[in-house]
């Protein structure tokens, strides 16, 4: 049940995409996101989705990416279903080609959105992300809190699995009983998980203070992010793609499909 996170879990690797500056990568993800939002046709949305595939292959994160799509597939199906029903009803109970195409394109749009940020998180280390935030002049405490939160998601997921195992070994059956009973079944999982998280945060605060956290107002970094040629190219391509997209969408009439 905690496997959905795998699609967003960073693994250290080296690829042109991994080496890009997090800021230009973030811009790229945002452009994909924006394009997927402004277009509604099945053709452009499919194109936006397909364009990302070479990026995934270059980054070598195909398996993790597929896993995040699989995690999103259920929701995409739900989106398809709801759209189909609602449009079917508003079209006067007629199942036209338009209704099916529209519902499909909404599902594809959702997958394109997931995919854009999945690629970003899969190829950007939390450290880089924190560094980017820091260089955007966000106070260090916030950057630190953010990177720590990101870093502890997999730890917490692993711990939750161990707790589930331990309680199942004591005869707890999570999937048994009425709806209310099932919700109550999670109490023995949540209490140790929360207590553990609180205890860990206290320990971490002490460890940080022991290492003089916050002793200096201005921090310096060993690694400083600098935009390289590839980054400028990424920014340029992203922005011009966005401009083209906006132009095509709002100023040119695409023959509808």
């Amino acid at each position: 049940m905690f496997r959905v996170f795998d699609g967003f879990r960073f693994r250290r690797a080296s690829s042109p995409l991994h080496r890009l500056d997090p800021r230009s990568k973030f811009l790229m993800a945002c452009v994909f996101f924006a394009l997927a939002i402004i277009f509604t046709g099945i053709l452009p949305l499919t194109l936006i989705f397909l364009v990302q595939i070479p990026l995934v292959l270059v980054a070598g994160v195909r398996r993790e990416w597929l896993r995040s799509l699989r995690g999103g597939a259920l929701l995409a199906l739900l989106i398809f279903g709801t759209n189909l029903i609602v449009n079917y009803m508003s079209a006067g109970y007629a199942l036209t080609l338009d209704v099916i195409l529209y519902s499909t394109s909404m599902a594809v749009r959702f997958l394109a959105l997931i995919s854009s940020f999945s690629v970003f998180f899969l190829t950007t280390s939390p450290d880089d992300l924190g560094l980017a935030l820091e260089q955007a002049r966000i106070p260090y405490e916030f950057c630190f809190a953010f990177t720590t939160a990101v870093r502890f998601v997999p730890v917490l997921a692993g711990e939750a699995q161990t707790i589930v195992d331990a309680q199942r070994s004591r005869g707890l059956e999570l999937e048994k009983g009425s709806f209310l009973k099932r919700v109550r079944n999670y109490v023995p999982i949540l209490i140790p998980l929360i207590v553990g998280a609180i205890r860990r945060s206290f320990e971490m605060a002490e460890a940080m203070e022991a290492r003089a956290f916050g002793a200096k107002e201005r921090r310096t970094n060993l690694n400083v992010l600098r935009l390289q040629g590839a980054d400028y190219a990424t920014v340029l391509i992203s922005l011009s793609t966005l401009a083209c997209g906006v132009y095509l969408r709002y100023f040119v009439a695409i023959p509808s499909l």
Partner: protein
Amino acid sequence: MIQVEDLYFSYPVGVEALRGVSLKINSGEFVAIMGENGAGKTTLVKHFNGLLKPSRGRVLVDGVDTRKVSVASLSKRVGLVFQNPDHQLFCETVEKEVAFGLRNFGFPEETVLKRIDWALSLLDLTEYREVSPFMLSGGERKRVALASVLAWDPETVVLDEPTIGQDQGQKERLRQFITQLNAQGKVVVIVTHDVEFVADCHPRVILMSRGRIVADGLAGDVLYDHGVLDKASILPPQVTQILLELADLNAPRGVIDLYEAGEVVANLLRRGR
């Protein structure tokens, strides 16, 4: 009886944790599973109550394939005590903690009360009956976790790293307790790194390395086998080390009991005089 036949297991992430493990644990046995970090010890014991299901091969508990029955029904026979008690304690009082498993397994209320009394006195916890488990020390919490499993009296008890974070006195008490359980006919399986503790208990030792069993035999034999110990990144216990050093004086192999080893050394000294 637990029977493992050519067991393979891979985690969803793709790590192959067990690669062809076969073993048989008979009723009344006392077994220590040892091996380096990541050898697959915990993965193996999680198969004993069905928490994990084989990718290939099969595991039989009392002749029943673990794939065919629920974790709850298997746990009633095979009680698994996890390494870290903080992963399972959640109730307001020690008493409720011990009652949790009993109620899950649907014991009648009077039996529940009787078993709570029994388990608490067994582990010397009666005085903490109304205390929150979160107020107890690490060693005490470990005992509460143990009591909460022993309460339903499973035929097999599996203890994952029972000696971690325990001082010498606690360890000695734990050893006596385990020996006593075993003497009463329970199958006891411990998963541990603590080679001195194993030497004190002299159980059957199963040594694992990289998802395979590399040795299986009496503690006296396995803990004298340098080759396999090295493979599993385990240092022999001190008794073994001393007697191996004295091999040129014809010190016998296979002695791991501290008292017995004392006799051996005394005899060697007498002969040398």
